[in-house]
């Protein structure tokens, strides 16, 4: 199986504050890896190191075998890492259409490249919002836009940081269906979620972080059948 993304021995620090300790995991192509952990466990920090916001102090990150740990975010994006950040961070003063257009990237060897039309087909409610400023969208629509924006780059690996955060249950379900569809189309995904049920329903592999360290790494089936594991690492005290 092809290794789409691999982290080995990643240390990340904010100034002197050591947040990630020797984090390692692998994502195989076409799979979904759920990255779980309590608030403050280091999940977002992990995303930031992969996309290049916070270059790792030690360790190596590889995208389909190529080392990307020292590259800039724009280069990492161009190499094929798509990013749906926590809090969505759409470009508020751009229209919906512009948000999608500026993020468009050509990628060789993609059978069905993402286009504006395909994103609209994925999120039909975007159709009537194309000329609207993205900042005026509802939270759920912004989340869909953030996902669409990442897809426009035709990512080889898609990072998603809590795509269901702060959304109404109906919208969470819609996001869940979208993720399932992406998975079925063969998209490799690292999914950070607080919504354990959503994550375990989609994931093939699970990595659990605890205070910046990998506390568990294994198959999603294993986690689903082991309630104690969930309580120990993810339950609220």
């Amino acid at each position, binding site marked *: 199986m092809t290794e789409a993304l691999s982290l080995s021995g990643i240390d990340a620090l904010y100034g002197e504050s050591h947040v990630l300790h020797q984090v390692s995991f692998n994502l195989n192509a076409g799979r979904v890896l759920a990255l779980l952990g309590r608030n403050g466990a280091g999940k977002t920090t992990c995303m930031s190191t992969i996309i290049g*916001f916070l270059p790792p102090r030690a360790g190596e990150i590889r995208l389909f075998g190529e080392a990307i740990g020292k590259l800039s975010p*724009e280069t990492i994006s161009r190499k094929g890492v798509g990013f749906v950040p926590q809090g969505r*961070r759409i*470009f508020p*003063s*751009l229209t919906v259409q512009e948000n999608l257009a500026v*993020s468009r990237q050509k990628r060789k060897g993609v059978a069905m490249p993402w286009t504006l039309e395909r994103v609209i087909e994925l999120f039909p409610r975007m159709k009537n919002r194309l000329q609207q400023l993205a900042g005026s969208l509802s939270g759920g629509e912004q989340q869909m836009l953030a996902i669409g924006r990442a897809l426009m780059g035709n990512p080889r690996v898609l990072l998603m940081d809590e795509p269901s955060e702060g959304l109404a249950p109906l919208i969470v379900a819609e996001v869940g269906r979208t993720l399932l569809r992406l998975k079925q189309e063969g998209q490799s995904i690292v999914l950070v979620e607080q919504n354990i049920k959503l994550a375990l329903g989609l994931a093939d592999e699970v990595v659990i972080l605890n205070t910046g360290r990998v506390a568990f790494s294994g198959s999603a089936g294993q986690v689903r059948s082991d309630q104690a594991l969930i309580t120990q690492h993810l339950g609220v005290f």
Partner: protein
Amino acid sequence: MQYWIIQTLNSLALGGLLFLLAAGFSLIFGLMRIANLTHGSLYMLGAYVGISVLKYVPNLWLAAIIGGLVMALFGGLVERLILRPLAGNALGQVLVTLGISFIVADLCLIVWGGDPIPVPTPPALQQPILVGGVAFPTYRLVVLAIAVATALALYLLMDRTRIGAMIRAGVDDMQMARAVGIPVSRLFTAVFCLGAALAGAGGIIGGPIMSAYPGLDADMLPLALIVVMLGGVGSLLGAFVGSFLIGAIYTFGTALLPDLAYVILFLPMIVVIAFRPTGLFGRQSV
């Protein structure tokens, strides 16, 4: 009547020149958070370079293009070699741009001397246009037209092209713009070059009205600063409205109340900033 028309056209021409200066300043500040204090120097240096061109080829428009290109090159080098290594160090960047502006001022003094150098109005534009017995100074109308055309072109560039949307995405959220693959650093340099070119071309285009003299940089920079604060950082519309507002306030202020010119100039800015810290057209979350 004639007096008021002249003053109005003076204010519009000054507003137009201010726009050429402030548009780039505002874009650079909005995108890179760099208060580029060399912007006045780019204006003055553009004027002097243009004057040297005029010695060989007596064509103001050619001089403006060459002055603009030379300033684009100069600005690009400053951005890449000096400001880029200081990314994230706002104070360092301000001090460096201030230092460069002093150096440029001294070099200009050495090369072009201390006396004001007049720039002749292109012969075709020297005759005023007569409408109903009133003489309108043609060149000032042309300067106004150039500023409006530039504003329109910048608007189309920023609002109607993908590159423009990319620049605005960078202004919205630079880090996130990088994360979707927008080549932010290359765009930075391009915007810097564009802003420098506009300032440099503005310097020589303003020549027939203001001529070139030591201290032109220090006269223009504060006006550009006020325009941008008034209009809102990063806002093209703000730079446009602010330029003509300040052009009018400055022209009529110095004409009517010469002793209070600076009060009249800074008061509206202070009032606006007090009630709208992001300026008239700036976004609230900067």
